[in-house]
């Protein structure tokens, strides 16, 4: 018995989400988009004859992650200075040691992009094609299949009337970007539902203030700094949640989105560590367990230099709040200033003039039976046509 023929061929690229991953597979007559969530799979099929466009546009995700890994690399370099020692550096080392390698990998993998597949009835983002190089490899595999499936549709489409066009980005012929007859728009503006609100600016501003307060608290421990710090952190958490919830409806830069998520994760971590520190104190001073104010004073008056863990935690708070806050504030403000106007509803408009039928579609000279704009309709009774 021979091997069973593979029904699907894997297309390069893997999109990872919080839970699960996304992959793209090529069948005989359709693309299969698979969303894997650990214990189940969801399938979406896009038949080649139905695909109208595959659009990619650059994103700034690579830049954002470079900033994050770059900052942690600086931390790792600082920690490697011989003068810096103590148990407090251990948690920071754990967080920052893979950063240089991740920074290098992020840079080597090339620019990031967002890829959207359009049919007549739906638009589907393809998260597995989030790197431009991977997207180009995938398009090189898929385009010939689409071309073959739409060959008959293309011939029909080249009758007079605005219907199709090929839009190369720079004028250079790029086989990955052109397709016999189908419409490829090299850049697609994201549909702007709403302009970005000021919640991002508020979130990052609060983080910066919290970072400055934590820096002062590092050297002058007092309740007058700790209590506002807790309030500021709480405010940041609330702003972060609101910002993340509003991201779905607002047209926000990719970098700001990512930074919002990272900020929310760091704030949550800060809260969790703070909670465990508080519980540790409660266990150390069981008599004060019912007097939360006294416990809070105890936390506030304790010097971060008393224990290595406390010092590491304080430094982590200062670093993430200042770095994320300042980066996010700059990007967030720029995002507000440059917010685009409302985008047109629906797909981009089709240009008016179709180009001549390319040889790759018909394989021959244009069919003399088809009308073209230059020729005009043929008169069957004219002497030229015999």
């Amino acid at each position, binding site marked *: 018995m021979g091997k069973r023929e593979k*029904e*699907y061929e894997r297309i390069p690229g893997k999109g990872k989400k919080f839970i699960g991953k996304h992959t793209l*597979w090529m069948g005989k007559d359709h693309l299969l988009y698979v969303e894997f969530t*650990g*214990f*189940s*799979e969801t*399938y*979406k*099929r896009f038949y080649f004859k139905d695909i109208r466009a595959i659009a990619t546009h650059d994103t700034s995700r690579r830049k954002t992650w470079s900033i994050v890994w770059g900052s942690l690399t600086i931390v790792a370099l600082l920690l490697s200075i011989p003068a810096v020692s103590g148990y407090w550096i251990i948690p920071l080392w754990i967080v920052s040691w893979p950063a240089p390698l991740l920074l290098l990998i992020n840079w080597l993998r090339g620019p990031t992009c967002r890829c959207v597949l359009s049919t007549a009835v739906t638009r589907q983002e393809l998260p597995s094609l989030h790197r431009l190089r991977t997207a180009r490899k995938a398009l090189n595999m898929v385009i010939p299949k689409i071309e073959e499936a739409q060959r008959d549709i293309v011939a029909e489409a080249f009758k007079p009337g605005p219907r199709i066009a090929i839009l190369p980005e720079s004028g250079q012929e790029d086989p990955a970007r052109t397709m016999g007859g189908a419409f490829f728009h090299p850049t697609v503006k994201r549909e702007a539902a709403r302009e970005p609100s000021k919640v991002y600016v508020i979130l990052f501003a609060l983080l910066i203030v919290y970072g400055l307060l934590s820096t002062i608290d590092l050297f002058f421990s007092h309740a007058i700094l700790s209590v506002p710090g807790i309030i500021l952190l709480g405010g940041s958490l609330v702003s972060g949640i609101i910002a993340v919830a509003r991201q779905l409806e607002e047209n926000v830069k990719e970098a700001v989105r990512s930074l919002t998520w990272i900020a929310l994760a760091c704030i949550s971590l800060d809260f969790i560590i703070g909670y465990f520190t508080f519980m540790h104190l409660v266990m150390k001073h069981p008599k004060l367990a019912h007097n939360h104010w006294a416990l809070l004073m105890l936390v506030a008056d304790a010097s971060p230099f008393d224990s290595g863990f406390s010092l590491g935690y304080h430094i982590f708070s200062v670093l993430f709040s200042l770095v994320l806050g300042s980066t996010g504030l700059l990007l967030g403000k720029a995002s507000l200033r440059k917010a685009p106007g409302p985008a047109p509803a629906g797909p981009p408009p089709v240009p008016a003039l179709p180009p001549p039928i390319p040889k790759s579609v018909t394989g021959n000279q244009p069919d003399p039976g088809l009308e073209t704009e230059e020729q005009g309709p043929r008169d069957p009774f004219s002497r030229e046509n015999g």
Partner: protein
Amino acid sequence: MDLNGRHLCPLCVETGQEKKTLKCLDNYRVLYDRVALALAVAPLLVFWLTVLTAPMALYVTVRYWKAAPSILRGSKVRFVIAAVFSLIEIGGWATLLLLCL
């Protein structure tokens, strides 16, 4: 009607979709082989949990052995590994119980 190169009646299409015999109409599948493997292997981190999860893994393996697998890969390797692990765990617990008695 013509579907994926086959000529089927509407009733056959509906039955095929319900029984998951027509792959081209399937939009969602639960991967029971992964469930069984996770139940058999993951609780090893907290060993005492396997007293509950090993029989569960074996049940899932037997109950869903014939369930439609992933469209992409239809092998039963995970089921086999899950069954082996769960049998070893059950055997281990049975031995421990006998030794204690």
